[in-house]
């Protein structure tokens, strides 16, 4: 069955008008919209930052897609609601000042965004949340594909969200230092990107998604070389981070040849569901809402992720 993306919206460190928001600690920080214009202010007051980012991009996506109520809501998050998790943990672990806040606990759970979206839409539909670190978004997309291919529904709202907090930045930096990973690293990031998927033809087509079985990525190699032999107007977005973990990409790079390639994390930073940002960027490029010098009018975009000790993934989108 052919599947299409008929609407998308994202909050990230990159804005085609405002450029890139990159702070002095080498971090990609989201350029956030005026939420009051998108979410009821009474609701807004009780919402954490990641909830705002998620709900606002979900609402915008449905607006763009002219979908009132999707028939499924699927979210992906690698680390969940980190700010609330961190707040609750820090207070709990400080014996002298143990003022734990129930709201932080309630909102610390990974499915908080999915639940909020359902409540906002007053929808009883299918609702699921995937959290498989860097593969979370691809797995949520797989769920969406399976639901649509089953033919019982025709519209899915899908999103990937992760937030960067001071605590995460501090601890992850320590971890990277311990693992000597930081040299050349683009920086940590965050973002929320949502998509409306449908079986009804639309501007962007989902040509393929391939998840390799663990480290055997022959399928992905074959797919890319077969595709590139036929289609010259292709852009490849890679999930490279700038550091030595990029070595995992080496096995496929000779296949890319002279194909235009962009390391998309230079625009959003590194975070578990950054693949959602890449898919959003691909949709914008295919519809010429954003134009890059590397390739003026791509017809095909392949998003390729290679991870050390994890399955490789490919998402292929085309403009119609």
């Amino acid at each position, binding site marked *: 069955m052919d599947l299409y993306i008929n609407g998308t919206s994202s909050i990230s460190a990159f804005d085609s008008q405002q450029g890139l928001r990159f702070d002095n600690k080498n971090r990609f920080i989201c350029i956030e919209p005026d939420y009051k214009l998108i979410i009821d202010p009474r609701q807004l007051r009780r919402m954490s930052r990641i909830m705002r980012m998620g709900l606002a991009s979900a609402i915008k996506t449905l607006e763009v897609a002219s979908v009132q109520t999707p028939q499924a*809501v699927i979210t992906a998050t*690698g*680390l*969940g609601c980190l700010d609330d998790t961190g707040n*609750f*943990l*820090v207070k*709990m*672990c*400080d*014996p002298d000042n*143990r003022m*734990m*806040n*129930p709201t932080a*606990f*309630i*909102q*610390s*759970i*990974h*499915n*908080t965004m*999915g*639940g*909020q979206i*359902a*409540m906002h*839409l*007053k*929808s*009883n*539909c*299918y*609702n*699921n*949340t*995937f*959290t*498989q*670190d860097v*593969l*979370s978004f691809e*797995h949520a997309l797989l*769920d969406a594909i*399976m639901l649509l*291919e*089953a033919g019982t529904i025709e519209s899915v709202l899908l999103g990937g969200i992760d937030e960067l907090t001071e605590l995460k930045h*501090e*601890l992850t930096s*320590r*971890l990277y230092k*311990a693992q000597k990973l930081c040299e050349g690293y683009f920086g940590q990031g965050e973002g929320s990107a949502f998509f409306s998927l449908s079986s009804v033809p639309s501007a962007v087509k989902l040509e393929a998604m391939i*998840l390799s*079985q*663990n480290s055997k990525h022959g399928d992905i190699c074959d797919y890319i070389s077969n595709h590139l032999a036929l289609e010259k107007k292709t852009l490849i977005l890679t999930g490279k981070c700038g550091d030595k973990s990029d070595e995992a990409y080496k096995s496929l790079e000779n296949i890319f040849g002279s194909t235009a390639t962009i390391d998309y994390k230079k625009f959003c930073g590194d975070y*578990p569901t950054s693949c959602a940002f890449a898919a959003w960027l691909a949709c914008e490029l295919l519809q010429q809402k954003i134009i890059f010098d590397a390739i003026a009018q791509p017809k095909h975009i392949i998003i390729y992720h290679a991870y050390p000790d994890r399955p490789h993934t490919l998402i292929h989108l085309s403009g119609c």
Partner: protein
Amino acid sequence: MKVFIAGMGVFTASGENCSGNLSALLEKRHGIHASSRDIDTLMGDFPIAKIAYTNNELAAKAGVSTSWPRTALLGVIAAQEATASSGLDFTKYRAGFISGTTVGGMDSTENFFYSYSKNKTAGHISQIINHECGKISHLIAENIQAKDFVTTLNTACSSAANAIAFATRMIKTGRLDIAVAGGTDALTAFTLNGFNTLLLLDDELCRPFDARRKGLNLGEGAGYLVLVSEEIARQNNCPVMAEVSGYANASDSFHQTTLSDEGNGPYLAMESAIKMAGLSAYDVGYINLHGTATPNNDLSEGNAILRLFTDKIPAVSSTKSYTGHTLGASGGIEAVYSVLALFNQTTLPNLRFEISMPGTELIPETEARKIELRHVLSNSFGFGGNCCSLLFSKV
């Protein structure tokens, strides 16, 4: 294509494996013997269903590193039992591991934070590397050789049930031959304090579906099913225990932490799961309730059952009166319990029930009773309004 259950594993405070859990259920022996103070000395005294082994003992039992978070240790033991009981060689097939968890490696993260909160440069950073929920699944999948597809769902207390439903679909659509699916969660200070700030903990043993219920007891554990396609079951002459005949996910869409009084999400999940199997509500012989023993959950679930089953209410019981509420693992543990009930043609007793809830008058099973069962429903509902029901049928 039909999806069958060819193996099971379960580890709770009331039993270390399937047979141990079944005898505890039939003999009405619960596992809620520890205190919240065993985990967090600063907390009030609440009963918890803690598995008596230390992390080092669990690691030795499982033959894995002592650095694994407790959630992974509990999970791998149940997953190893499930794998062994299936007798299947996973390396010959496309085998996946699909798991639900809510806390991930939180117990280890907490240890880091106890040092870090005193001194920002203290704490071993290696204690947080397995914090993410997905890391837990990765560790377990590698150990049981179910590595062709590994994913994790976190829909709060319905995580494991959603994992089983998703795994069934992966097999039905031909993407996997075998999936080990269920969930695992360890007790942590984080969840204990969280539920305590929400005033959801009972300071006595919990009483699901009783009029005087005051809240839940938290527990820990893991439960996994080995799901296989019809084809694989036939090829290998698998001892098939039941079929996954229906599953459904619905949002209650009412409130982040409470269910609607009329139980819209629970009703839709149960109704759709039964419909998927081409059955009517009358065909269900037993429901393993979500039954957390909070005033809100049991009333909402009870009302949904009354609306759906009207004049012919099946046998119902909540086995959280044995295991406590094991959060993200509960759907996996209770899936195993549901299949045990079906396979042994027995109801499972609900402990400490005396007075029915006003308005519903539902009376759960209080004795293990031999009964002819063809279809058993298992309910799981979570924060965020995430409801999931699974239907298991006799083969």
